């Protein structure tokens, strides 16, 4: 993100828009309610002359009705003014190459994002925004560090239009399909003369958000096909059988046993722990509810959420690494989870990073294949179904897997026949874990670097670990305990393979240059 965007340059072509006027209220409703509650309570209790339960400031409790109403009105007016100000000074603009967002009343902020660096776009609807029919648009930009750009709030339909327009431009469709048409006069009646936010842009809500030239893209992204969805029963089961839940239950049982020796113990004392657990379970249920994964021209579309809903778009070219995992208790049920590393999502700074990097919270083998076919369009093997079956549940050297030598058995008594790697034409597949099984897939073209690591114990057994460097995220691809000779060979070969794959792809536009 450049520190100095130049609104004047892009502004001449594309009009500036404002977000929806209700937005500040949707964001700040909790504060308003809290102030109204406290103030109203104080005023009322003083009016009816009751004993002040918790005496407020004197000017409130002692004032007659008119004065307190005036003060209340004044506070309300101030809040409304603040809301109006934040709304008035928040503007956005979408040009062919950039998205610009200006915000801030006292401390002005201008942010610019390069569209060809957009990694993924989310449409988020918190509960209150849903009531108003509004949505927040969030996009992660590769060169913006950890911070995501967001646009809160616009109408849901506008949010969809904006997403499609940005993604189509990010995909590079602009260059190949449509010649740049001049902005239709009818499209932006207010925007033409008002690029720097003069008052004429105020009715911008009425004007179409996306200029006329973007219209062809919209039809392109409209078709989506659901490839996987999660039924409620399976979601609930997966949450209960998740390792973290099992640990929590064991911890609470242990706590109960330990505390039962204390005099005067009542089961009631376990309530905080139980509440915490219920909160965590609810959180999982809330975010995983009604999960749907769909394919569309611009990538994998995910939608989920019970109270707060979120629609995520993950373009295939942005996926840096993929992990399929099967916790021990899920295996009998044939359930798997798919998560990915995407730049801007997995940084860990954002509290929803973990949730947003999940492509499939729980699914069958068929669901996993369907999702993989979108994010890894060319697996590079002849029989993908058999290959991924071997990767997920197999062991030994079938389907081209290279596994750890038998001499490391004392170090990995269960996993030594399973842990290993396989190479496809397009990716390296690392297979790990005997009880909690994982498979990590790193496309050759996305390899950021490689390292060989060896500790003293591994040196004695002549084995070596190969780490594939990838951007921060839930996937940490490691090929464990390879024979030293083949590890060294793989190291340099893989570096060369990555270099060759890199030369053939330009990841800034994932469709346009094809």
């Amino acid at each position, binding site marked *: 993100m450049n520190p100095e965007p130049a609104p004047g340059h892009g502004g001449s072509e594309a009009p500036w828009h404002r977000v929806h006027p209700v937005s500040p209220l949707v964001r700040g409703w909790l504060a308003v309610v809290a102030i109204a509650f406290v103030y109203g309570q104080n005023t009322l209790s003083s009016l009816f002359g009751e004993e002040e339960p918790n005496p407020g400031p004197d000017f409130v409790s002692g004032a007659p009705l008119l004065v307190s109403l005036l003060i209340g009105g004044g506070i309300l007016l101030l809040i409304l003014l603040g809301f109006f100000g934040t709304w008035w000074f928040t503007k956005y603009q979408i040009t062919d190459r950039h998205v610009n967002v200006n915000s801030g009343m006292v401390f002005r902020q201008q942010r610019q994002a390069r569209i060809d660096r957009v990694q993924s776009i989310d449409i988020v609807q918190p509960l209150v925004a849903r009531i108003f029919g509004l949505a927040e648009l969030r996009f992660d930009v590769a060169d913006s560090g950890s911070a995501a750009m967001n646009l809160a709030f616009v109408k849901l339909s506008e949010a969809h239009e904006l997403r499609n327009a940005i993604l189509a431009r990010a995909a590079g469709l602009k260059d190949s399909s449509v010649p740049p048409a001049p902005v239709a006069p009818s499209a932006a009646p207010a925007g033409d003369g008002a690029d720097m936010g003069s008052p004429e842009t105020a009715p911008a809500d009425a004007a179409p958000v996306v200029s006329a030239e973007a219209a062809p893209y919209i039809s392109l992204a409209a078709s989506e096909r659901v490839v996987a969805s999660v039924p409620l029963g399976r979601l609930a089961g997966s949450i209960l059988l998740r390792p973290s839940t099992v640990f929590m239950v064991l911890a609470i049982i242990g706590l109960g046993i330990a505390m039962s020796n204390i005099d005067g113990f009542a089961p009631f004392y376990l309530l905080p722990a139980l509440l915490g657990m219920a909160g965590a379970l609810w959180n999982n249920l809330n975010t995983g509810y009604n999960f749907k994964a769909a394919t569309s021209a611009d990538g994998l579309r995910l939608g989920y959420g019970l109270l707060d809903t979120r629609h995520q778009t993950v373009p295939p070219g942005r996926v840096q690494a993929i992990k399929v995992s099967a916790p021990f208790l899920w295996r009998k049920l044939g359930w798997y989870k798919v998560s990915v590393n995407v730049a801007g999502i997995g940084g860990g700074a954002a509290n929803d990073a973990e949730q947003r990097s999940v492509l499939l919270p729980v699914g069958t083998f068929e669901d996993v294949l369907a999702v993989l076919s979108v994010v890894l369009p060319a697996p590079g093997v002849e029989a993908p179904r058999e290959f991924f079956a071997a990767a997920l549940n197999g062991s030994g050297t079938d389907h081209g897997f290279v596994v750890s030598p038998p001499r490391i058995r004392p170090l990995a008594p269960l996993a030594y026949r399973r842990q290993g790697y396989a190479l496809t034409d397009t990716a390296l597949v690392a297979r790990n874990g005997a009880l909690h099984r994982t498979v990590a897939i790193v496309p050759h073209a996305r390899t950021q670097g490689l390292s060989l690591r060896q*500790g003293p114990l591994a040196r004695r057994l002549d084995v070596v670990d190969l780490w594939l460097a990838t951007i921060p995220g839930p996937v940490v691809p490691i090929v464990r305990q390879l024979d030293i000779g083949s590890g060294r060979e793989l190291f340099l070969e893989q570096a060369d393979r990555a270099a060759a794959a890199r030369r053939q792809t330009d990841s800034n536009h994932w469709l346009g240059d094809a």
Partner: protein
Amino acid sequence: MPQEPIDPAGIHWTRVSPSYAKVRMAGWAVGALVTLVVLCVPLVLNRFGVWSGFPLWLAIAAPAVVLAIEIVRLLLIPRQVAAIGYAEREDDLLVRQGLMFQRVLVVPYGRMQFVDVAVGPIDRMLGLCKVKLHTAAADATAEIPGLPLAEGTRLREQLAARGESRLAGL
């Protein structure tokens, strides 16, 4: 430098300046001194009779054990410095480090986001610098300490030029 079993075949490593050991030793001296002073506090208090309840053997043993460990670490420093090496290949940079826990890292030039050259106070006295090649992956950040200034500048220019010509986005 000796060829370790972990090193890929056919790579000629460039060593960093042996005087980088002095930088590491300076860091070691500060760290060891602070640790030892803290650990000697009970002993001193005990001797002056302020904290006579503290067992004398422990007050002596703790600093002694730490001192022994620190001396071993000091003796290892020259060998650790000798274990640092780098090699430039056509498409990528290789960096190796470590005696006990060894690591060889390969970073493609095209993945480079930016190059840092850092010079600390003791580095400056010895005419050394540290070159850091940043990529999007925290794992693949190549760090070469203890380069002579001229070599560091050359490497930075070289890396920047090669990164430019092989730029691959993310």
